[in-house]
């Protein structure tokens, strides 16, 4: 029988945003906490990093929540017992990682928030913060422990975004060990880019020069590794299973992928940041532009991964994938009888 190849429209841009914000938010918490604990105590970085991550994760989770068919039943995955009842489901782990990452990271940032008039004078938030002043004091006492709890859950969040896709066996592009690795590298690269934007555009402290250079260097390495992983995926899809070959056809005939993601999302910022760490730039504009490109590329990667996952079936899609673009089998794949 000839096989039919189709992409899906069950999880589209809104899941891509969820995966992007999950990866970015998780990696940003890891980077800010580790920086604050082991590189340099940096209150503004912690505040911007953790509060932004909280907003990102809230937004991403809200998008996912909006698309649930029975929103009330989300209670089952919010209950920590889900890890005992359904340890084989990555959404169970992901939900718990996200929830506890948000909780521990906010507790980690609480002492700094209580010292910052912007937060304490804010309506509602200021009142809530005062109510939790005792928790801020406790957090100060066990700051490193709480930092590590935030880091562990954040690493879990980042890791989960890739493992979620890997758990779908019918799609060659997703069901392979490269996906979690790619998503981890991409998440940390986007977090470096985001924090560089924070340091260059908001915090703007001369004393942070060494930290900015550290982030730029790290980002260059991460983008370089990401380029290598993308090449591995190019090879895997181009010379792999038939469904993977269709994925390659989709990706490498799409200017959004080639120019948008690979070009402006990886290669151009890689070159800009490489020049920055080797010869330096006179002003922050090139690095800011590169960081914006890396962030856009981070979203595009996930968007195209959702878009280009190809299912192989002996019949056309009908049900859950009712709106699938049915890719016509090539001549060589037509039913031969």
């Amino acid at each position, binding site marked *: *029988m000839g096989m039919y190849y189709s992409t899906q429209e069950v999880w589209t841009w809104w899941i891509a945003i969820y995966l992007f914000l999950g990866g970015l938010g998780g990696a940003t918490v890891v980077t800010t906490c580790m920086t604050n604990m082991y590189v340099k105590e940096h209150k503004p970085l912690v505040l911007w990093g953790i509060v932004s991550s909280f907003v990102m994760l809230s937004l991403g989770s809200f998008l996912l929540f909006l698309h649930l068919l029975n929103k009330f039943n989300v209670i*089952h*995955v919010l209950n920590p017992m889900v890890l005992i009842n359904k340890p084989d489901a990555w959404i169970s782990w992901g939900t718990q990682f996200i929830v506890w990452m948000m909780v521990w990271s906010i507790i980690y940032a609480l002492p700094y928030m209580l010292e910052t008039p912007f937060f304490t004078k804010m309506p509602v938030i200021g009142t809530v913060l005062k109510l939790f002043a005792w928790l801020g004091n406790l957090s100060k006492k066990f700051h490193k422990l709480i930092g590590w709890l935030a880091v562990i859950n954040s690493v879990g969040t980042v890791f989960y975004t890739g493992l979620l896709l890997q758990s779908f066996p019918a799609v060659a592009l997703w069901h392979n060990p490269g996906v979690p690795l790619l998503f981890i590298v991409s998440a940390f690269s986007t977090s470096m880019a985001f924090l560089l934007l924070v340091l260059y555009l908001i915090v703007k402290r001369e004393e942070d020069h060494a930290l900015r250079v550290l982030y730029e260097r790290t980002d260059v390495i991460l983008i370089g590794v990401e380029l290598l992983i993308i090449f591995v995926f190019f090879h895997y899809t181009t010379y792999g299973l038939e469904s993977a070959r269709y994925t390659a056809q989709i990706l490498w005939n799409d200017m959004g992928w080639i120019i948008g993601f690979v070009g402006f999302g990886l290669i151009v910022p890689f070159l800009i940041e490489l020049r920055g760490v080797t010869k330096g730039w006179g002003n922050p504009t090139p690095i800011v532009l590169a960081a914006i490109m890396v962030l856009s590329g981070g979203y595009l990667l996930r968007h195209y991964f959702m878009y280009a996952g190809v299912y192989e079936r002996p*019949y056309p899609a009908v049900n859950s994938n009712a709106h699938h673009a049915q890719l016509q089998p090539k001549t060589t794949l037509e*039913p031969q009888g």
Partner: protein
Amino acid sequence: MANTPHYAMVIDLNTCVGCNACMAACAMENQTPVWKNQWRTYVHDMEIGKEGGEVRRRFLPRLCNHCDNPPCMSVCPTGATHKLDNGIVLVDDSLCMGCRACAMACPYDARLDMTNDDLEQGKGFYGELLHREHPSVDKCSFCAHRVMKGLKPACVETCVGFSRQFGDLNDPNDPVAKIVESGVAKPLMAHLGTRPNVYYISDLERAT
């Protein structure tokens, strides 16, 4: 576990006439959202052969494969998708939150959305007989409610060509077990490791 049945279905593509009675029987039995062309079981009308050569028309019924290793169950975060000891994979719609991870994981396109709008529409379509209460990501249940009463699934019961046969793989005297044991019936996409329990007898290789 020797006494526990292991249910499976064999579909003989040589005798399926494409009447779609199975689709209709299933829809009425299980109250699926047919108004949006979504079905627990669906019969594909396919042309087999080369352009310019001999072309034959074949019907390919498909449904949930009630896999022994169901990826839809492992990805389900609430435990709504679960497997009975008899091999039937079910969805508990009171637990399902409708994240659709199961639809993404299923290689057989067996999942369909039953939304709140569908439940409303179902009231008009199925009238007071409507027994669906919760939105969920729905699928074939091998008519477990009928099987437990000793009946066959609605699609099997209604099949005019006896194309669909339902039986117990653990009973060596069951005709379905004998067909599967003989190797004449093959599952779809077994290479994915899902161990499906719907088997097909095909003469498609003779269609040229």
